């Protein structure tokens, strides 16, 4: 679906943001794209959509270079940016003008989501609140049924019930042929939606594994004070250390995304090493 090889890019000369970044995204998966502020998550999404061009390397979407912005490729991708401005149209007008560009646009699904999100389709989009606008764009994005869906901080600005609605709607859709990339800081909001953890650090993808693989290799558990245990990465909590340890019989299968992300940022080599050894 998306193939990025040796991608290099810099906003300023001699200050590369990406250097030799490689990533493969496959259909049927939902990727959680994580990284510290300024790591380049939005920039990476902009490369995939063809809005930015690599200085060197390849960024292909559906087998074609993203920078060519071919209509047949664009009709199979949709991006929900973090910051966005929609034209001064009513939601219904927006749908009438933009939906025909997407061959599998589902009007029924759009109506259902608009009702669930309680977005007034007769009001002009700029007059809606930020959260309402975001819900409208998410609904439109899901209704396009494109093969590639990119969402940059989709839950920013959504109230708590809307976040649950979004997760529920996304889970109810047939995503077997769709590749979804969710870039977020809100690991707790979207952890249940993803099946891949992809971490961007120092201009490279330092971690890209599916949850099943992670659960087989790593454990997330609290080590009590006084208990002697080796761990890969740990954070002090009340009464002990919450730690990532190699998977074993004492392991806790429940993955803690926040701990995993912090662990990858601090100890990416040690965590990746756990995936190099043959599984138990």
């Amino acid at each position: 679906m998306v193939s990025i090889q040796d991608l290099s890019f810099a906003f300023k000369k001699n200050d590369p943001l990406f250097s030799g970044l490689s990533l493969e995204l496959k259909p049927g998966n939902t990727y959680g794209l994580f990284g510290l502020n300024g790591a380049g998550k939005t920039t990476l999404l902009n490369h995939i959509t063809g809005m930015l061009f690599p200085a060197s390397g390849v960024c292909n979407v559906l087998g074609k270079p993203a920078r060519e912005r071919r209509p047949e490729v664009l009709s199979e991708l949709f991006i929900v940016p973090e910051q966005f401005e929609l034209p001064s149209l009513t939601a219904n007008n927006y749908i009438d003008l933009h939906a025909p560009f997407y061959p599998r646009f589902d009007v029924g699904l759009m109506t259902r989501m608009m009702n669930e999100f309680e977005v007034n389709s007769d009001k002009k989009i700029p007059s809606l609140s930020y959260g309402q606008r975001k819900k409208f764009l998410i609904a439109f994005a899901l209704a396009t049924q494109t093969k590639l869906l990119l969402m940059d901080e989709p839950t920013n600005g959504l109230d708590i019930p809307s976040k649950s609605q979004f997760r529920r709607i996304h889970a109810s859709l047939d995503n077997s042929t769709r590749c979804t990339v969710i870039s977020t800081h809100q690991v707790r909001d979207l952890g249940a939606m993803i099946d891949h953890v992809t971490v961007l650090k120092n201009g490279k993808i330092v971690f890209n594994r599916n949850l099943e693989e992670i659960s087989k290799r790593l454990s997330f558990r609290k080590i009590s004070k006084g208990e002697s245990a080796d761990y890969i990465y740990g954070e002090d909590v009340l009464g002990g250390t919450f730690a990532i340890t190699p998977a074993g019989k004492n392991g806790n299968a429940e993955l803690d995304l926040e701990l995993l992300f912090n662990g990858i940022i601090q100890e990416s080599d040690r965590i990746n090493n756990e995936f190099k050894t043959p599984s138990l």
Partner: protein
Amino acid sequence: MKAITHTPGFSLDRFILLCKRFITINQRTWGLGFAGALSLILAVWLLYTIVGGHDLVMYSTIAGLLQLLYILGGLLITSSIFNELHNAGSASQLFTLPAGTFEKFFAAWFLSYLCFTVIAFILIVLIHTILGLTIDIPEIAVNLNITDMNLFSQILSYTTYHSIFLLGAVYFRKNNFTKTALSIILFLSSLGIIFIILFYTPGTEIFRGQITDKTIFGFVEEFAWILRIVISIAITVLFLFFSYIRLKNRQVA
């Protein structure tokens, strides 16, 4: 709602949808612009009617104003046609809209040049007809006739300037109209200064003599129109090409 079947190459369906999108998004601004221009014409007409000015003066004023509004209005529309691209928040809307860069470019050209000129012409002829019915246009005004060759000259100017302003619309991120206008002024001024320097440089007397030579000047004058058309078209094609390439290589702000 009929969805498009996407095929590589130019698609008329996508082009029509793009035009519809440009019109719907800009209809309010464009409508206000046209209403403002018509109000200005009406105000001039009312002023002359109330004050009781000479019909010929009124006719020539309105004719001049129409030509000015045609060029100025068209260039303002052209300058703002790609505004969506220059805002980080709205750029993705047009960049990722499933249509080819050429289709997007062609739709912008089609609306801001062809459609605008046709609509402006219809309005000009309409106003001319109304003026003809309400005032007695003297014989002398034939030379000022707003539907004659003088207008062809205006269209030719608009054709060239439009292509330059289209490049400005893609190239500059803010104040596209002002920046393009200033660039043109700067370019023409530089050209003028170079010409003056060359003209008064010692040793160019022969060249100076040829320029003022009546035979050569007369020769140029005979072909002045053809030369102007050829140069205008060449500049237009060049700038349209630059605009397209710039749009194709444009990245998010």
